[in-house]
């Protein structure tokens, strides 16, 4: 299993760089993960990441993209409640890239 070094701590990640232990996650780590994905965190991106984490805490799975876009639309304004905007925030895809930064496991399947 690979590890990454953040603030002097070594954190376990899987082959794709997703956290192995959700508990390792903190905001500093999220910023570092985002940087490795060439994404710089801002309030809008934090909205996405925080919602993903909240949803995951409740359901043990990342939300359907449609649920995420609707939620973001509620929070940031209707014009931003769409997949296109989410891809602007996370060019690697809201499911995979945003989940990675949120410390969630990588979604698997035909996605």
């Amino acid at each position: 299993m690979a590890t990454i070094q953040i603030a002097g701590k070594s954190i376990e990640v899987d082959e794709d760089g997703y956290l192995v232990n959700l508990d390792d996650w903190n905001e500093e780590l999220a910023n570092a993960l985002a940087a490795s994905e060439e994404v710089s965190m801002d309030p809008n991106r934090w909205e996405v990441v925080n919602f993903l984490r909240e949803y995951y805490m409740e359901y043990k799975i990342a939300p359907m993209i449609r649920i995420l876009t609707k939620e973001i639309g509620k929070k940031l304004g209707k014009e931003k409640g769409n997949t296109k905007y989410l891809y602007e925030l996370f060019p690697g895809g809201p499911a995979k890239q945003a989940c990675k930064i949120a410390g969630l496991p990588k979604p698997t399947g035909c996605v």
Partner: protein
Amino acid sequence: MAKADFEIPDIKNGVSVPAVKPGAMAHVKYHPASEAHLTKLGFPAKRVDNWKEVALAKMNELMGKYKSLSLFLDVCVKCGACADKCHYYLGTGDPNNMPVARQELMRKVYRKNFTLGGKLFGGLARAEDLTEEVLREWMAYFHQCSQCRRCSVFCPFGIDTAEISMAAREIMDSIGIGQKYTLEIIAKVHDTGNNLGIPKDALIGTLEFLEEDVKETTGVDVKFPLDQKGAEVMLIVPSADFFSSPHVDSLVGYAKVFHAAGISYTFSSHASEFANFGMFIGSYDNTKKIATRIADAGRDLGVKRIVVGECGHAYRVAYSFWNTLAGPFDYLDKNHSVPTHVCEFTDELLRRNALKLDKSANDEFTVTYHDSCNVARASRMGTEPGGQFEIPRNILKAVCNKYVEMDPEANREKTFCCGGGGGLLSDELLEVRVKGAAPKVSALKEVMDNQGVNTMAMICAICKAQFTKVLPYYDIPMEAVAGVHQLVSNAIQLGDK
């Protein structure tokens, strides 16, 4: 255009047959499966010490079990008719991606260990032992085959590389070498009933969300029932439909069709997955286990019919194998095909004039149809051969005003794979996926440029996920990807009829 750290094939003037570039794709490696997943699926946790003996014994066992494998290893005359038919060869030029050469990776081991000529005159017959080096080739190139069967269409003996790559993967699994993507997913199905690992509560939440969402946009109470005993139909869909876009739009489409038809249906939380990756690794046991889960769910819910959603390989498993794997389905109504593809279901309603449609709802789209390989070359819809081509097209023409065909040399039975099938829809294989998509994207681009197409409809969850990912590399927006029932969903008129 999406950024890549590899060269994107130039498709401006179509895709021509590339010159042979030995080793061009040898560097691509999949992530190895974890010990936990290997064990869960019934394979050794790590590579066994006497792996060569075990592999050869497995190969011998499979040749005794499958006429296809034993025959295909013998009869290839290396005529090369398949050589330029594989999308991965066309996209990469790596000669080991020619179907005949891919098969040769197993055939040379077969000759060395199972034929007199290979034992006596190894060099002349290019026989080779299963060395560490050959095993590395197997790992690389049997995971650059999407098992799409395009080669088998053109083979004078019907040799199907898919059968060989499935066997190769099963042999590798049997010695404790597995691919993470596929094995992890199969493990999740066994545990949770679906590829994504969606727990029941999350599924309930998702379906409730969809009910509200559809109510908001249409004003109609379209139901997304779960575990409803006594429903007429159990609907089995790929779990990507509960998660991804544009997949979910087809899911909404199915629900609207059932609503409009007035036929009760239900999803199952026990079997919330149509996909069956067991086939990709050639594992009879795992394929059967996944299929049986679905058969059991239908029996428990007391349904009369099983209708299946838009998923290519899963439809192959359902159409061709379910009867053997999990049948007989004697609890179902024999007046309907078992299983029924959702396109067959919708088509029948269209024929009966049972759906109210407003084609103009899709007027912003000029639509073309992509034949998914496992539907096109490994299954059928309706009663006539080739129904799998006509029925989805009938539906599209019924719900869209502007419909355009792609080049038949790249579609129908000769369709090019999206490049992500067969367990290759994994990020570390992105280079293979993008390059392998080139022939199909080229056919799409042609109708986009010349006939104003802006939407490619399809009925496969892998195709949808793959194209939304790779089209941007060719400067085509991911919004060009649509499900057939997504377009049905747009056009269907709910409410009083």
